[in-house]
């Protein structure tokens, strides 16, 4: 159901909202995996490479989905994944149980790594449509199985006008900058900044309220 201006070929993938029309098999992190990851991270902090390998096997496909959304070029996505896992190895000791769930902590590292890499290579999102089309689709999980917190976030996002939702999602999933959004929406970057911040404030009020 991609909509309004309808130009975001990239959003056919890497956006949970497209998924509303999709049904399929989901594979999310289940609670046992979170628990196992919680037990692996202290081992990894102590240099246990076997534990690290296990963590890689449990999480790499999930983290690869995250970086693939930001980086359409496969070689960049692969580099980001590799760098993200090296960071996980280096930072395992700073993981604080109870602060973020392990999967969230890992996904944040992967996403930040991918966005850094995207900025560094200044990969333009003005990529040709066929390139975006050609990118493997990264569908999202069926709604029925979505975690509660995603359902809530989705409800809160729905409070925003559609173009604002898209801006937030393009930024989050695909790492679009203010300038890229400005070009896409034909608004000044300062306006985009204002719109983004207002939108995020709405989200926060809804989520925390």
């Amino acid at each position: 159901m991609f909509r309004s201006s309808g130009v975001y070929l990239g959003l056919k993938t890497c956006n949970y909202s497209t998924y509303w029309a999709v049904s399929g098999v989901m594979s999310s992190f289940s609670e046992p995996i979170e628990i196992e990851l919680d037990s692996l991270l202290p081992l990894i902090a102590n240099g246990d490479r076997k534990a690290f390998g296990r963590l890689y096997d449990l999480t790499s496909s999930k983290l690869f989905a995250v970086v693939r959304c930001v980086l359409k070029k496969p070689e960049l996505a692969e580099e980001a994944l590799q760098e993200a896992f090296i960071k996980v190895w280096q930072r395992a000791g700073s993981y604080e149980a109870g602060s973020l769930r392990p999967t969230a902590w890992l996904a944040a590292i992967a996403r930040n790594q991918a966005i850094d890499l995207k900025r560094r290579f200044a990969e333009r999102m003005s990529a040709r449509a066929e390139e975006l089309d050609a990118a493997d689709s990264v569908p999202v999980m069926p709604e029925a199985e979505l975690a509660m917190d995603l359902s809530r976030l989705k409800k809160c996002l729905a409070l925003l006008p559609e173009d604002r939702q898209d801006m937030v999602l393009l930024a989050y999933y695909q790492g679009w900058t203010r300038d890229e959004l400005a070009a896409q929406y034909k608004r000044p970057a300062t306006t985009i900044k204002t719109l983004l911040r207002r939108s995020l404030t709405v989200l926060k009020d809804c989520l925390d309220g």
Partner: protein
Amino acid sequence: MARPDDMDELAAEFALGTLPPAEKQEAESLMARDAEFAGMVKAWERRLIPLALALEPVDAPPRIRGAVMKAIAGDAPGSETVVAWKRKASAWRLATVGASAIAASLAAFIFVGKPASPPSDQRYVAVLQAEGPGPAFLASIDLANGSISVRTVGAPSLPGKSYELWAVGGGRDKPQSLGVIDASFRIPASKLGKIDPAALNDTLFAVSLEPEGGSPTGQATGPVLFTGKLVATE
């Protein structure tokens, strides 16, 4: 930037990833020296992360696993933060081995300072490292000897600039300067700050780039280049 709302909006955009480079750098530096702001950023990451977790997994090419395992093969874990190095006679030798993994050549180990009345005999070590494979500092506090030491693992000496070491958090209202790391990567004992050992575990150490001689304001003014946490080495 004074209003909490503005801070939170900056944190929100930082977490979303849309800040232009200069503002992003500002936010990063703010994160290192302002625990409240860092908390706001974390809260935003937490609010948004369900989106990332909603993605369907995509198998990565198998060669990535091999490349990752190879990359960490010679590397001590926790090089950014916490390294459980053993104490006693081997402590410094092991520390050197860990640091060697980061950079082949080391500046001479530099021993500085004698703060008064060491309250315990614990020893702490942290590697302060930038994002990526950049240069790093190794900082340690030995409460038994009452010493703080800093050495570089490759940070360049920059003309007209000084590196300044800060302690952040751990009950401090604002970052505390521990002194300027001079051109030969020492912290002169005369400039050395005092550390409250009780708060060490919650303290983040950071190195910022300042005008020559250190921050003119008493607070970090330049970009925060390196951060790390100390850990007791038993």
